[in-house]
């Protein structure tokens, strides 16, 4: 899944490269989503400046592109932190304490859901069901699934992320 790529592995936004990425699929039917995935793959997010370019190439309105991008939460509007931690908040995980995990992340580490740490090391997000209910509570760290997560595990993840590579 491209949506799991964090900016740590992605290039800085570049209009010319973005244009090439968009152009590459210009004659494909239903190209909007593949283009958005490609951009996010390349840059870790879809910059606002891509909206008029996609609209022009696909001959749709800017509003339509905006509608698609905002519909899918995994399309980012800004680069994420170096690491992305997704905490599952679906029923199974809630029943075994994911709310405590989230509260801990907020209180101890000052990380709000949907935000990136001030040092840019980590972005914490919520997600609804990773399909790992048997091993709840579950999180996804940079695309890697982790089950039975404890508060200690979380502390370790966040502290490791904050360490300079």
């Amino acid at each position, binding site marked *: 899944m491209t949506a799991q790529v964090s900016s740590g592995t992605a290039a800085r936004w570049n209009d010319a490269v973005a244009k090439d990425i968009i152009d590459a699929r210009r004659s494909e039917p239903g190209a909007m989503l593949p283009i958005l995935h490609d951009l996010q793959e390349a840059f870790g997010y879809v910059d606002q400046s891509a*909206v008029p370019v996609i609209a022009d190439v696909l001959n749709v*309105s*800017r509003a339509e592109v905006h509608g698609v991008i905002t519909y899918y939460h995994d399309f980012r509007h800004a680069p994420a932190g170096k690491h992305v931690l997704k905490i599952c908040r679906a029923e199974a995980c809630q029943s075994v304490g994911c709310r405590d995990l989230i509260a801990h992340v907020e209180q101890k580490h000052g990380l709000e859901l949907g935000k990136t740490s001030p040092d840019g090391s980590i972005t914490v997000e919520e997600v609804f069901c990773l399909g790992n209910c048997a091993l709840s509570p579950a999180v996804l760290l940079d695309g890697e699934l982790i089950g039975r997560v404890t508060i200690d595990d979380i502390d370790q993840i966040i502290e490791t992320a904050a360490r300079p590579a």
Partner: protein
Amino acid sequence: MGLIQEIDYGTPIRVSEKMVTLEIDGVSVTVPEGTSVMAAAMSMGTAIPKLCATDSLEPFGSCRLCLVEIEGRRGTPASCTTPAENGMKVKTQTDRLASLRKGVMELYISDHPLDCLTCAANGDCELQDMAGVVGLREVRYAEGDNHFDAKHKVEKDESNPYFTYDASKCIVCNRCVRACEETQGTFALTIAGRGFESRVSPGGTDFFSSECVSCGACVQACPTATLQEKSIIDHGQPDHSVVTTCAYCGVGCSFKAEMKGDKLVNMVPYKAGKANEGHSCVKGRFAYGYATHKDRITKPMIRKSITDEWREVSWQEAIGYAASEFKRLQANYGRDSVGAITSSRCTNEEVYLVQKLVRAGFGNNNVDTCARVCHSPTGYGLKQTFGTSAGTQDFKSVEYSDVILVIGANPTDGHPVFASRMKKRLRAGAKLIVVDPRRIDLVKSPHIKADYHLPLKPGTNVAMVNALAHVIVTEGLINEDFVRERCDLDAFEAWARFIALEHNSPEAMEASTGVPAADVRAAARLYATGGNAAIFYGLGVTEHSQGSTMVMGMANLAMATGNIGREGVGVNPLRGQNNVQGSCDMGSFPHEFTGYRHVSDDATREIFEKMWGVELSDEQGLRIPNMFDEALGGGFKGLYVQGEDIAQSDPNTHHVQASLKAMECIVVQDLFLNETARYAHVFLPGSSFLEKDGTFTNAERRINRVRQVMAPLSGKSELDVTIDFAHALGYAMPRMAAAEIMDEIAAVTPSFAGVSYDKLDKLGSVQWPCNEAAPEGTPLMHADRFVRGKGQFVVTEYVATEERVNARFPLILTTGRILSQYNVGAQTRRTANVDWHEEDLLEIHPFDASERGIVDGDLVAIHSRSGEVSLRAKVTERMQPGVVYTTFHHPNSGANVITTDFSDWATNCPEYKVTAVEVRRTNHLSGWQLEDAEEGISLRRIAGHMSEAAE
């Protein structure tokens, strides 16, 4: 007189030959196949509750309020998305449905502010209505997230000058989003986010900065106060309404003028209006504020010399003075020394009276109309070839077109409501060919893309049409059956031989047009073989030295391919002004009576002499440019100008201004002290369309009623002013109301013989010819035979204009207009439409700009052989290299200071579209602009009034 309420069937009424019969609540009803259960129910008067459905939009099925029970079907299907079927048994009201609907409403209301009493939509809110209909009595979901409390509410978007967007009141029914797509075709709205976050969004920005063109379709579709007119927020709901016709472009949209006492608070497009079918544009829908603008002059005024102050006087004194001056001029300089110009903004009845005043009162034929400077070649060209000076189709016909050829027209800006209709057809698969020097929006905009754009050099239309015809003739694409049966064969053969000559081939013409021959060939093949092919054209065709030739060239093309005389084809001018067709029909040309009959024709003259009781001149009168020339020559001294601003709109301003200054008495009748009024001696205050009774005739020959919604601000109708003027001149013109004048027009004009106000009220509108042969009018012309008998092919040799580029003037300037402004801007400049376009800009290609060191926003001087003005530059790839473009909406821009005296060989229609110019950076306005600004103040002073800056 109450508020006119239109029935909303919920989904479009389908057209089908096959009918289906079903039973709704025990009552049998028959509807065309494809009609929804909801619309079928409404057709028998049963309103099924609904929120997301409205009959201007395709069914959507999201609100779940219109559920019904159908015998033999499981569950409760949505009536909007369920087509009616034979034998269906539908129940619209059961206990189960009532409980479901109440539950749905309860959820809606749980996320809606309960501020009905102070809400702008109070009294016009479908959500409120539906709560009442389903009997909602309580809402059990008091707690929880919502979109309206202090924590969640987002600021109202008030960026559009005419309406607001209040997300807290949105029920996300998608009607606005669908209206923007389906009705308007702009796609400026979307639903952003998902789930609870879903909100209507103009694309992540505010409305004003978005792609929105402010047509009002979303506001019209909104069932709540989410999208709400500011005028309604300010004034409250209207108390009565009157159906009338828009006074902007030649589309002729019907509107309900919604009033509160004598104040207009809303203009709502009228669904039964056949030209617009419930759609509107930013001008007609919102830009009506000029009608009560403080600049309106409502008192008659006179002055001896144009450098004097204006003096307010009584009507009697003003008209008496004008008449005594005209009598003096005729006594001193002869009967032909005075004349009049009628206006395409005025009603048919007003225009008719003015030409009657000239012919019967002045005793000459010196009457002309502003169509001279726009569509006179249309009248000439289509009359020569087909026999009628008008377009061949109704607008609806475009729904049956397979190939649409747009030449020299910019419908999305100039005729937006028709453009929406055309775009709908294009999205449904029709092919599009655009012949235009600029890359207009139709060439490429969301979901629209021209199959061929032929970006010809301005002034080479005839070369292009000949090249297209050459392909058709030489590649055997002629519709021989049609030509043999319907057209004059000798003329056809002469034309075909000429067109087949090598010099007319796309390859040979490429040097003139600049368009690759292969594209021209492909476009010609598409036009000839793509099915129903329709031509729509505008002033980019007519305003050339070969304007009339080009009109005939297009007629040749249509006849040669058999694209005439049925739905979906034809040759159709997009008329500029609301009543330009009508003003031409009404006999305001110096050579023609009503119905385009020549003044030298004894039989016709006799009809009018009998009706008017005077002897009439059989000599053709002066055209507008002749009037100017004669004025400078000393033979033309007095002019009565009704509702036209010739000083701004006519070409070569220096020449026009000098001519006006040379006259001894100019009488201007207008809403405002316009540019022409600077040179006037008598000012007669005119009435806006809201203040008059009458008719306008639109581009499809449709005669639409204009109904008075408020009394004339000046206290006197324009009809009465003309009649009083006639009386003061000594001609006893009978005093008649608008309906009686139409009766007279019908009595003297064969093509109007069947027109009466009774019929117009009954049918809504009729398209002329309307007479014994066609009592309900004629939507489609030349169906079985051409009006002139056989269709006449005319040889159209391409002759390049005299206006040439050279080293000194290397660029071609062409002119046009933009969506938010209208013509000389007298109306739109006095509305919030200026927010979109506060000044005229010079559009220039990046290549030409960089060669001259010009960047976007620079002030640049534009020189032509006629004059010089300065405008700001807009660097854009819409232009082709070598061509620059501007609009003429603002008087001090002086676009016409640089246009030339060249004109159409047949009709003198000015060649506005081709002027050789040079452009360079500058830091000051031109001498003309400075002097003009100065005169704009000094020649406009009114005694006793604070001197105001130029408008």
